[in-house]
């Protein structure tokens, strides 16, 4: 006997029913997020092609035009040394992205290794790693970055490490909790009951269900690292001048502001809008991947 299922809700057979397509469909409806994504994309493009479209080199000081307001020669004006602000911003975008992406990768890689280790091994390893996480959360990671930057110096690569290394704890905690909730969940138990190996469970069952959360946390991590990098500049531990960065420009401009407001207009607005764009994207991703939970 086969029991008729006459009133089954008809399941539309669509070609692309993958999770990413579904998430993208939800993401697309969020105009803030799409707008943010466009800005972020432009930001990335500028980061890549910046050096080619820059009218000057960032070390070229125009001594004839110090503190020049925006003009045809210097469309964003120049600062007290005569650096072309447009060029400075183009390079700032590049370095900001290099540092933020690099630092996020560093945090994420350390976090994922330790998080997986803690979640899968349990026992003493778990306890030690979680103590480490508690320790990292006891102080803002910015302070750890500050202290590390003393040791490592002020170059591009040292900055990536200084910001990236202290950021591991958040990712580790997230990944551990995801692993634990799944490991004890019925889905993984069912997969074990089917006879699936650990690698099969991890690849086919766990990974597809955590990738969304990870993408979201990375999306929130990038703007946080952008902010941290600029923050280090404010307390004088950022990239070494003349390497341009948003933080340096903001710090420099805010103490030289009287009479030269253009030094602030451009970096402040571009930096603020960029961070907002990243947050809109991250928020949109969160909603797209996880439509019910979260805030």
């Amino acid at each position, binding site marked *: 006997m086969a029991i*008729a299922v006459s009133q089954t809700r008809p*399941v539309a057979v669509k070609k692309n029913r993958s999770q990413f397509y579904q998430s993208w469909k939800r993401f697309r409806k969020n105009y803030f997020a799409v707008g943010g994504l466009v800005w972020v994309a432009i930001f990335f493009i500028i980061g890549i092609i910046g050096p080619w479209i820059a009218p000057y080199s960032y070390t070229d000081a125009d001594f004839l035009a110090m503190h020049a307001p925006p003009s045809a020669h210097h469309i964003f004006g120049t600062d007290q040394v005569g650096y072309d602000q447009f060029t400075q911003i183009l390079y700032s975008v590049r370095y900001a992205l290099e540092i933020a992406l690099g630092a996020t990768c560093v945090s994420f890689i350390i976090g994922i290794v330790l998080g997986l280790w803690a979640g899968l091994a349990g026992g003493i390893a778990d306890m030690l790693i979680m103590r480490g996480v508690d320790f990292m959360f006891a102080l803002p990671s910015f302070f750890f970055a500050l202290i590390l930057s003393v040791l490592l110096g002020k170059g591009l690569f040292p900055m990536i490490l200084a910001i990236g290394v202290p950021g591991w704890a958040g990712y580790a905690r997230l990944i551990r909790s995801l692993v634990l909730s799944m490991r004890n969940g*019925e889905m993984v138990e069912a997969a074990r*009951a089917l006879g699936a190996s650990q690698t099969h469970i991890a690849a086919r069952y766990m990974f597809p269900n955590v990738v969304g959360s990870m993408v979201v946390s990375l999306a929130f991590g990038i703007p946080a690292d952008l902010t941290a990098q600029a923050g280090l500049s404010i307390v004088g531990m950022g990239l070494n001048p003349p390497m341009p960065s948003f933080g340096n420009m903001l710090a420099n401009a805010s103490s030289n502001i009287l009479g030269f407001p253009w030094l602030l207009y451009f970096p402040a607005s571009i930096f603020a809008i960029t961070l907002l764009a990243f947050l809109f994207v991250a928020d949109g991703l969160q909603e797209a991947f996880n439509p019910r939970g979260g805030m």
Partner: protein
Amino acid sequence: MPTNPLVKVENVSKRFRVRGRELHAVSNVSFEIEAGKTFGLVGESGSGKSTLGRLVLRLLDANEGRITFNGKDITNLPNRQLRPLRQEMQIIFQDPQASMSPRMTIGRAIEDAMEIHKIGTKQSRRKRVDELLERVGLPSFVKYAFPHELSGGQLQRIGIARALSLNPKLIVCDEPVSALDVSIQVQVIHLLQELQRDLNLTYIFIAHNLAVVEYLSDEIAVLYLGEVVEQAPAEKLFKNPSHPYTQVLLQSILKIPEDPSSRQKMTHIQGEIPSPFNPPSGCTFHPRCPFATDVCRTQKPVAKHVDDDHKATCHLIG
């Protein structure tokens, strides 16, 4: 006594540590199941019935005791050797949605079971998915659906199809119908019954609904706080319930009366199941037992034979 049982459970115990406190989930349980039969496990929440089911499948490792499957001691079998054996012993869950990946279509989920054991080719697996869906009474297009798009009853059929895809000998049914509506419950029970008949399956049927367990099972064990308090063939257990707890359970069932005048009186026992963290002394049932004596409060009863295949763990027997 069965001579060559498919499943043999001997003196199995399982303890959990929860925040430094020890919980006896299953204590010293033994039973045997012959191939093609159904063994019912009944008990209220916290009785350890689900844990016991998972111990048999080695989804949990027992602290003590021995589990033999198809003549092979699997108690300490390493995972590598256990995995191929899993084809022969499957489980269906109370909440089928939680047991499936929300990111996998139904078709992929069933296929994956076969892929794990490298059964057949891609084409033959696909064909088998269609066959299985038909076998459990679902149209083949549901294979394109995701779990959240189906109803509870449909998902439970998918769970059954996934288990069947491996041609198991034993299926542990962990409260497979308790989350379903009455009319759907019967459909699923009917399906399970048919499958057992056609495929000579052995079931361990776990439920809190006594009537359903009685209906399906050949032999039944009643669990209370992780201990088997009574065990007997289904007819004997219901005809002659010997442990006070079994009697109470039976009295708690609300049967549809013949007419309102023959209604059941709402008689009930006092109290609720005690915390498994600190179970009562002596017989764990004594605080709720209407017949408890001093012996019950201090001494742990041992299983006694009421009949050659009917055992109850109570001081008042014999």
